[in-house]
């Protein structure tokens, strides 16, 4: 379990992490999102004990990272952002070193190494020296290092960075599988990854947590969330909108596009709509008006829009 309370990190006059608190329980995968320089890596470095916090506390598996660093680090695996490894070693040598320093020896060590070599698809490069590896393989080697001791707690800074699409998929699946029992924090710039992997996501901007919730909770903050989009052939957008505007549950309508005889209209709900209410009303109207409907769907909200709103608009409001 990871417990972070009021974490602050200052580099000189600059505050990189500003009062961040969260907990991650076993079986949870917490995704860190945020623009470049938001403080994701800095937070992770404090959680893993690489740099000391300016203020606040971190407890990992019940051990305070400052008072009892060795015990805390034993319980944890860490994949740093740059995925470093010793270039003069072979992949096998590097993994052996990682396993030994984690206290594994003998048959147990070999078994652990075989396991991560298989999980991270390193069979082909096992005897190759690290500095001749391609970027993706180097990344996977460092990833393998972080899970060689099968830790209960994992901290991974952009684990899928530099991987090809197939590998991205594999690693995501692996993280999700591990997340059933472990407490995992990972950061990413890929929003779909958050939706695909995380049980909870945190958006960080300029050191502060600006949003925290399940991916669907976050996406429902989007303005689009709950709106109903309707595609109709053979009726003008104006006529459709004036009919839809008459529905009680609808606050406003917009024309998304009108092209080739197909009108594309979006109806936004008033306050918090109940599931399906708005779309039912829209469908009813469509049937009554006898429109030839091509498509109708409810927006679940888009994370990228939420991300954009939370991290860009503020920058514009309060320029430095």
């Amino acid at each position: 379990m990871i417990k972070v309370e009021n974490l602050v990190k200052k580099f000189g006059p600059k505050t990189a992490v500003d009062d961040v608190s969260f907990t991650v329980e076993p079986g949870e995968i917490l995704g860190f999102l945020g623009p470049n320089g938001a403080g994701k890596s800095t937070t992770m470095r404090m959680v893993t004990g690489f740099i000391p916090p300016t203020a606040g506390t971190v407890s990992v598996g019940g051990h305070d990272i400052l008072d009892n660093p060795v015990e805390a680090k034993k319980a944890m695996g860490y994949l740093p952002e740059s995925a470093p490894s010793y270039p003069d070693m072979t992949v096998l040598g590097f993994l052996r070193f990682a396993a030994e320093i984690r206290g594994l020896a003998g048959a147990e060590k070999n078994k652990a190494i075989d396991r991560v070599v298989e999980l991270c698809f390193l069979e082909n490069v096992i005897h190759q020296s690290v500095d001749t590896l391609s970027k993706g393989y180097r990344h996977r080697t460092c990833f393998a290092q972080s899970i060689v001791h099968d830790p209960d707690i994992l901290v991974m800074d952009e684990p899928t960075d530099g991987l090809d699409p197939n590998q991205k998929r594999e690693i995501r699946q692996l993280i999700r599988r591990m997340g059933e029992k472990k407490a995992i924090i990972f950061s990413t710039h890929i929003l779909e990854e958050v939706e695909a992997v995380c049980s909870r996501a945190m958006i960080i901007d300029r050191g502060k947590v600006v949003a925290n919730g399940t991916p669907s909770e976050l996406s429902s903050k989007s303005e689009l969330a709950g709106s109903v989009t309707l595609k109709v052939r053979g009726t003008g957008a104006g006529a459709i909108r004036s009919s839809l505007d008459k529905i009680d549950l609808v606050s406003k309508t917009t024309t998304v596009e009108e092209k080739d005889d197909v009108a594309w209209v979006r109806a936004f709900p008033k306050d918090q709509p109940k599931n399906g209410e708005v779309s039912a009303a829209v469908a009813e109207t469509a049937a009554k008006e006898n429109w030839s409907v091509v498509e109708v769907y409810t927006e679940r909200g888009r994370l990228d829009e939420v991300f954009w709103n939370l991290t860009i608009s503020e920058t514009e409001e309060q320029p430095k």
Partner: protein
Amino acid sequence: MGNIKTIAKRELNAYFASPVAYVFIVIFLLLTGFFTFMIGRFLEANEASLNAFFMWHPWLYLFLVPAAGMRLWSEEHRQGTLELLMTMPITPWQAIVGKFAASWLFLGVALCLTFPMYITVNYLGDPDNGVIIGGYIGSFLMAGAYLAVTCLTSALTRNQVIAFIVSVVICLLLILAGWPPVTEFVNGIVDSLAPNATWIVSMVSSFSVMTHFEDFQRGVVDPRHVLFFLSVIGFSLFSTSVVLKSKRS
């Protein structure tokens, strides 16, 4: 202890995984041979001792030890592996000692490979082998002191070249502190300023590796001299831990 061993093993493998180790050993042996036979006139001296061999060690080490140790921490900084090392379940002190021990052992191996010198003098004459052993012990301790200084400078920078140059300068100061011209110079200054404070002169020269190495060359393993080298090592390694800590915060 197990962690220190794991770190040291990795470090030692890193030496021998690259040609640098072999190049280093060859250069070390060539230079000791060159200085001993050509400049030290070992054969002409017609003495059954290794004085001509050991007298060059402070100067040889001046360049060779920083060359062997400069990568110790600067590479960790540069490759980003410091972040791995410092988030593994070990204490920084274990990492520092492990890395230092590996390098020192490596220098010890290079020193041991000069054993043909020992065989040669024993074949040609009848030397006092106690004196020779003393010289080896002193030489090894001195190498350790230089190496610890290099450890410290390489923790300060990610640039190996800077680490090398700064180490050479510091080690040179350690040598020169006891060099007669420097002693006389310090003596002159002290004389003109405070004629009674001769302790300053002896303090400055007591920081010199030369002063402490001389007795070893005579075969005397004086605990005070051993303590001197060990304190230089201890102090430098402790400073290394302070530097590494401050670099991370």
